[in-house]
C-alpha cells in the first residue's frame, strides 16, 4: 500500500498574528512554523499503516524552501520520502491542483490530508484533490482502517458520527481521533539522523490557475472591557444577559 500524507506548514498555535506591506502579507517575523496539527494526527496514523501493514509513506508540501524543515521533521517521524512543490501556496485550488499531480504520478492508494490548515482555515484542499482525482473522499475523518483493498472510515458529523466504507483510492480530511493525542509521534535522535539521508525531491509547479486571491488583512477591533458580576449576585448576570446582551 502506498500512502501520501499532505503536510501543511503553519504558524505554531501560540503565534501572534501580524501583517506587513500595508496589511497585505502575513508577517513571518518571530513566528515558529510547525506541521499543521490535523496533519500530525494523519502522519502518525500513516506510521501505524507502515508498521502494521507494510505501507510506504511519502509526504508532500506545496511551498517555498522555508518549509523543508517541516518536511524533514515528517521524515524524522518516519516517512520514507518527501516532495516539495516549489511554489507559494496562495490559493487552496492551486495547492490542490499541485497535490493532485503528485498523487497521480505516485499512484497512491490512500491520501491523508487534514480537515483544515490552522492558518487560513480553508478546509478545501483535500475535497478539491479528491474531486480532481476522481477518488473517494471522507472529510472530518476520525478513524481509518484498510483491509483487502477496502477502507472503513468514521466521519464526525454535527452531533454524532458516521461509519463509511469505500474503495481505494481514497482521500481523507483527517483530525484528532485518527490517533490519540498521547500516541502522537515525535522525532527521536535516530529518526533525525536517518531523515538527513532520506530523499527530499523538489518539484516544479505545473500550472498556475487560481480561483481566489487574499487581498487585505485586518485584525479584530479591540475588545470592550469585561463587566464583572459578584458571585452572590447571580440575578444581575441574568438581567444583563437578558436585557443588555439579549441572548437569553
Amino acid at each position: 500500500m502506498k500512502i501520501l500524507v499532505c503536510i501543511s506548514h503553519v504558524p505554531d498555535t501560540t503565534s501572534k498574528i501580524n501583517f506587513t506591506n500595508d496589511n497585505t502579507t502575513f508577517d513571518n517575523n518571530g513566528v515558529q512554523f510547525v506541521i499543521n496539527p490535523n496533519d500530525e494526527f494523519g502522519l502518525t496514523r500513516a506510521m501505524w499503516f507502515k508498521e502494521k501493514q507494510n505501507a510506504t509513506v511519502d509526504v508532500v508540501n506545496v511551498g517555498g524552501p522555508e518549509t523543508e524543515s517541516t518536511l524533514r521533521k515528517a521524515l524524522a517521524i518516519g516517512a520514507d520520502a518527501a516532495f516539495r512543490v516549489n511554489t507559494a501556496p496562495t490559493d487552496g485550488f492551486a495547492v490542490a491542483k499541485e497535490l493532485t499531480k503528485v498523487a497521480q504520478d505516485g499512484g497512491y492508494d490512500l491520501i491523508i490530508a487534514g480537515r483544515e490548515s490552522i492558518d487560513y482555515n480553508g478546509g478545501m484542499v483535500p475535497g478539491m484533490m479528491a474531486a480532481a482525482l476522481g477518488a473517494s473522499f471522507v472529510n472530518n475523518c476520525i478513524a481509518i482502517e484498510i483491509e483487502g483493498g477496502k477502507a472503513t472510515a468514521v466521519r464526525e458529523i454535527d452531533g454524532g458520527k458516521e461509519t463509511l466504507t469505500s474503495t481505494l483510492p481514497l482521500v481523507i480530511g483527517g483530525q484528532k481521533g485518527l490517533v490519540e493525542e498521547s500516541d502522537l509521534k515525535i522525532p527521536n535522535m535516530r529518526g533525525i539522523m536517518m531523515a538527513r539521508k532520506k530523499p527530499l525531491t523538489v518539484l516544479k509547479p505545473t500550472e498556475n490557475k487560481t480561483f481566489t486571491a487574499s487581498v487585505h488583512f485586518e485584525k479584530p477591533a479591540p475588545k470592550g472591557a469585561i463587566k464583572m458580576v459578584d458571585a452572590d449576585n447571580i440575578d444581575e448576570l441574568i438581567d444583563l444577559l437578558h436585557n443588555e446582551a439579549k441572548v437569553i
Partner: protein
Amino acid sequence: MSVLVYIESDNGTIKKAALEVASYGRALANTLNTSLSAVVFSSENSELLGNYGVDKVLTVDFSEKFNAKVYADIITQAAQKEQASVVVLSSSADSRYLAPMLSVGLDAGYVPNVIELPTQTQPFTVKRSVFSNKAFCKTEITTEVKIIGLSNNAFGLVEHAVSPQTESFSPKIIASEITVENIDKATNKVSIADAETVVSAGRGLKGPENWGMIEDLAKVLCAATACSKPVSDLGWRPHSEHVGQTGKPVASNLYIAIGISGAIQHLAGINSSKVKVVINTDPEAPFFKAADYGIIGDAFEVVPKLTEKLKEFKAQNA
C-alpha cells in the same frame, strides 16, 4: 442568473443554519439584482423558505441519505440549471464536506468562513475569518461562478415574505464508491454546530463525575455542552466536545466558560461567539480579558445557583 442556496434539513426539518443561508442569499440576490433559488432535499417544511425570501424552491426528487459525492453532483446540476452566479452554503459539517467538491464541479472559487455580505461585487470580494478568528481577510473570488460558505450565526435570520414557486427537480444520479454503513447520532442533544448557546467546562471541574451540573445548566438553556482540550484528552468527556483551535469551532450567540483558563488555543476557536461569560476562581485567568461578563467564584457554588435562578427566570418568562 440567480443566487442558489443549499438548504440542509435534519430529520426532515429545515435547519436554522439553512434559514440563515436563505436570509443571506436573499440580501445577496438584492445586491446583485437577481432572484434567489433554493435546492432542498426531503424536507417537510419547505414552505418556510418563503418567509426568508426564497423565490424558487427546487425540491430534489431523491430520498436517499446524505452521500457527499452524490449530493455535490446534484447541487452542481441545480446550479447549472438555475444559472447560478453564486452558491451559498452554511458551515455545517456536511456543507464543508460538499463545498470543495462543488468548487471543482462548477469551476468556482470557494471561500469559507464568510462573515458578511460581499464588501464589493466588482471585483467580487468577501470578508472571511482566518487564523482561527485571530484575523480577517478580504478575499477576491476571480471565477465566473462563486461559492460562499457562511459562518454560523454571522448574518442571523432576516424575514422577508414572498410566495415561492415550487418545482420538482429530477437530476441525474451518479454512483458513489462510498457507502454509509451506520449513523450514530444523539437525537436528544443539541450539537455544538447548531447550538445558539454552548456551556463549556475545563479542568477546573476536577473530574468527570462533576459534569452533572454542567449538563443541568445546559439543559435549562437548551445549550450544547463542550469542553477544553485537556478534558477530552483525559477522557473525562468525548473528543466530539473538544472545542478550540484544534477542536471544533464555536460561533454561538452565548458561550459560558466554566473552570477554563482561556489559553490562546482555546480562545482562538471560540472567539467568534457573540457573548462570552466566564466563571473562574482565579481573577488572573486570561479568559477574563476575552469575555464580556465574568464571575470570580467557585464553579461548584456558582453553577448550581445559576441553574436554579435560570429555571426561575424561564418559568417567569415562558
